[in-house]
């Protein structure tokens, strides 16, 4: 059996497990649809209308429309899928990673160039505050 509590103890980390796949399925499949050029055009031309094609929750719709990248992860989004929305909007992985962790793209890039976010202090929620 999966020890969910142990995974949930890792700070700022949302294991893409059965519950998140179930919750986020339609959000992620909306993102998957953006792999096709004609769908990207349709989405960019009328975002709310395009989103009507997918049975999203209100919160999932809000996250997409407001570009709430961390919020999408909270409601079942998977980064390999939300990054397809990012690509549609011209946003890089580094931009999205910065947005999710409260940094500008420049700050995030500088952190990575300096060796990345340290693992020390980031292993367990109990280490933080």
């Amino acid at each position, binding site marked *: 059996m*999966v*020890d969910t509590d*142990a*995974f949930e103890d*890792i*700070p*700022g*980390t*949302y*294991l*893409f*497990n*059965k519950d998140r*796949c179930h919750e986020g*399925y339609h959000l*992620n*499949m909306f*993102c*998957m649809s*953006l*792999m096709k050029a004609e769908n*990207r055009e349709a989405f960019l031309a009328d975002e709310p209308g395009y989103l009507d094609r997918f049975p999203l929750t209100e919160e999932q719709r809000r996250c997409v429309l407001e570009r709430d990248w*961390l919020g999408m*992860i909270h409601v079942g989004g*998977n*980064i*390999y*899928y939300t*990054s*397809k929305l990012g*690509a*549609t909007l011209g946003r890089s*992985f*580094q931009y*999205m*990673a*910065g947005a*999710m*962790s*409260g940094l500008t793209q420049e700050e*995030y890039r500088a*952190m*990575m*160039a300096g*060796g*990345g*976010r*340290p*693992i020390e202090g*980031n*292993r*367990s929620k109990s280490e933080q505050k």
Partner: protein
Amino acid sequence: MAQIIAGLGTSHVPAIGAALDLGRTEEPYWQPLFNGYGPAQEWLARVDPDVVILVYNDHGTAFSLEVIPTFAIGVAREFPPADEGWGPRPVPVVQGHPKLAWHLAESLILDEFDLTIVNEMDVDHGLTVPLSVTCGQPEAWPFPVVPLSVNVIQYPPPTGKRCFDLGRAIRKAVEAYDEDLRVVIFGTGGMSHQLHGERAGVINSDFDRRFLDDLTRDPQRLIDLPHIEYVREAGAEGIELVMWLIMRGALNRDITEVYRHYHVPASNTATGLIIFENEAEGAPLARAS
């Protein structure tokens, strides 16, 4: 009989492919990374394999959440580079090896590894970036490839032990093949990285270096390493490293590390490349000229 003569582990970061495709490898940011790929390219050209078995993961490209195969083997004649949202990479179409791939599918399923068989599949950066870093930018890839895709996105991926055992079964199946083929196996993905959440950007070089060391020194530690250790120590997406154990399992117990390159960062990721030769049982590795 066919034989696995060597194994290679490498990261498959999409930004590395983009840097190469856009001609940015000489920029200060990228140069130290690409300099380290030169010796690996020379090694692979010298070894000149007849076929490469390439273990990788698909990133919501050929597969999505609709169907999630844990292990899938590509048996097609060719595999086109995928459009991942900004057009396909300008790299050659990947030639398959249907005869070996079907032999592996049959042998492995009868050996109780129930692979999904794939007749049509586009291949994303997970497969094409390892070819780019080891072959550069040729007109055509210098060898056919048998793609072996592993689910590492939907939890749970296969365990380290399962991956290692699959590698052993691949070796057995290769050795039962009726042609003399010299096969190299690639394990790809990693190293430490996390792409999502407030912890995005986490890097753990100590974990990575120990992982590289233990592929020769203590593979049993890696076989026994539970998923949570990867997720906690190497970042959620660092769990891709389990795929390297398929490569390791296909090699001899005793191997020689002939090359290593480690660099931080490529975009969000710590990158590693390592090459192992099976300890000599007579024949030299390089193709006789």
